[in-house]
């Protein structure tokens, strides 16, 4: 599902590589945690996978698509197969919760009657059924985060990229979200979760890729959270 081959990335104007010689191979249906200290390059990795930016060098292949050969006009098609939760949510701030989630479906041209059924169902799943009319700024941090998750999941994507999806959630909500992700993973979606939550990583016994200063320092099946020093 995801193949990174000697991928490097340096931000324009940056001195060091944000990602340095990354090699990852994630098979369809896997559930992978990406961990690493603040500034180690996790979000940068997600941005590359979403083709929000181009690698400085190296090859990327996601869902069978070779990014070096991908034409600009085919990017939307690729992105529709991926669900993303951004670290800073990135909700459309002038649309209601309902419209934010529905937007993902409109993009893939889901017929309206399905939208009207699936969006409320998805909102119920993340515990926001009664907030559908609110605007993002009328929500608490954790509520916004769950809207972002609902938007990422509503299309039942092949691949889910979640950048810190529980950073603003209490342990109980975090666990519920994790169970939701496991559930989706069981139904076939490949799940990549960036997180700082040691407890969750240690408990869930999934594959864990650890980054440090832009390099992979560990990649283990059924791994745990590696405390530095």
């Amino acid at each position, binding site marked *: 599902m995801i193949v990174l081959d000697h991928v490097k990335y340096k931000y324009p104007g940056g001195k060091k590589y944000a990602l340095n010689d990354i090699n990852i191979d994630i098979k369809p249906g896997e559930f992978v945690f990406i961990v690493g200290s603040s500034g180690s390059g996790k979000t940068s990795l997600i941005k590359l996978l979403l083709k929000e930016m181009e690698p400085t060098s190296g090859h990327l292949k996601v869902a069978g698509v070779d990014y070096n050969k991908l034409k600009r006009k085919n990017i*939307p098609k690729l*992105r529709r197969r991926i669900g993303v939760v*951004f670290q800073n949510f990135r909700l*459309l701030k002038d649309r209601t919760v309902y419209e934010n989630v529905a937007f993902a479906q*409109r*993009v893939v*041209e889901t017929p*309206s009657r399905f939208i009207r059924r699936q969006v409320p169902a998805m909102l119920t799943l993340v515990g926001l059924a009664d907030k559908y009319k609110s605007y993002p700024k009328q929500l608490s941090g954790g509520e916004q985060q769950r809207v972002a998750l609902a938007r990422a999941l509503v299309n039942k994507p092949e691949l889910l990229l979640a950048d810190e999806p529980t950073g603003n959630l209490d342990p109980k909500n975090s666990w519920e979200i994790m169970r939701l992700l496991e559930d989706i993973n069981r139904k076939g979606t490949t799940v990549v979760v960036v997180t700082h939550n040691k407890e969750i990583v240690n408990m869930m016994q999934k594959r864990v890729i650890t980054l440090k200063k832009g390099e992979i320092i560990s990649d283990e099946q059924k791994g745990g959270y590696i405390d530095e020093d």
Partner: protein
Amino acid sequence: MRISSFLYSIRQGLKNIRRNLLFSLASIGTIVSCLFLFGIFYCIIVNFKSAMTDLKNTVTISVFFDEGISDENINLIGEQIRLRSEVNTMDFISADEAWEDYAKKRYKDNYDAAMASFAGDNPLKNSASYEITMNDLSNQAEFVNYLSSLDGVRKVSTSEVTADGIQALSSVVGYASIGIIAILLFVSIFLISNTITIGITVRKEEIAIMKLIGATNFFVRAPFIVEGVVIGLVGSLIPLGLVWLVYDRVVSYVVGRFNVISNNFAFVSIGEMFKVLIPISAAIGIGLGLIGSILTTRKHLKV
């Protein structure tokens, strides 16, 4: 594209106008202001030009004939002159008409008595003439030379100074009009695209999010285009209405108040003016709304 997506784009475009009310009002305000100014000046200029043309038509050239010339020859001369491209209008004033005109002016109240006393003996019997107005006064001198050179023409009378003055004034006004209209158009386009650029720049993040979720350029852009066109449409209808109102008021005020003006000069009808104003306003308003939204979204679509 599905029909539902199409409808969605239209609905979103309309919603966006309400959501970004401040920006929408600012855009509409800018378009209204610019087109209103444009409309007002267009009216002023068109009327000025029309006044110039009226004035030009009062500058006539009179062609008088040799004494005892036959009517036939007068006709021949007339046909010759009529072929010239300089001629705008040409009227034949017979000797009797000339006398009548003169007597009316000269004797006013005693007109009938005067006519009776001269009965049958026209004191201006050699004053038949062609009264010619020209298309372009700048060739007057040359044309007068030509007319004088014709066989059977005794005298060509004209008022050279007046023609020169009007010609000069008309040129200046002509250039000034083009200058002003150009400046106004330029400023309007600048200001309107300015507002659109700011408005869309503010929504850069919104556009980026949509693209990252997988929206096509078209899908992101369509509501912006709808929004731009609607704003442009509203923004070009309002000033048309305003110009109509103002023009109507001003014309009836001036006509009522200054009969010197209304006696000598006919205002161009609002309908005539709108034949030009409507397409130009629509082109600027809707066109800029359309092109502006396409161009400025394009810049942000590269995500």
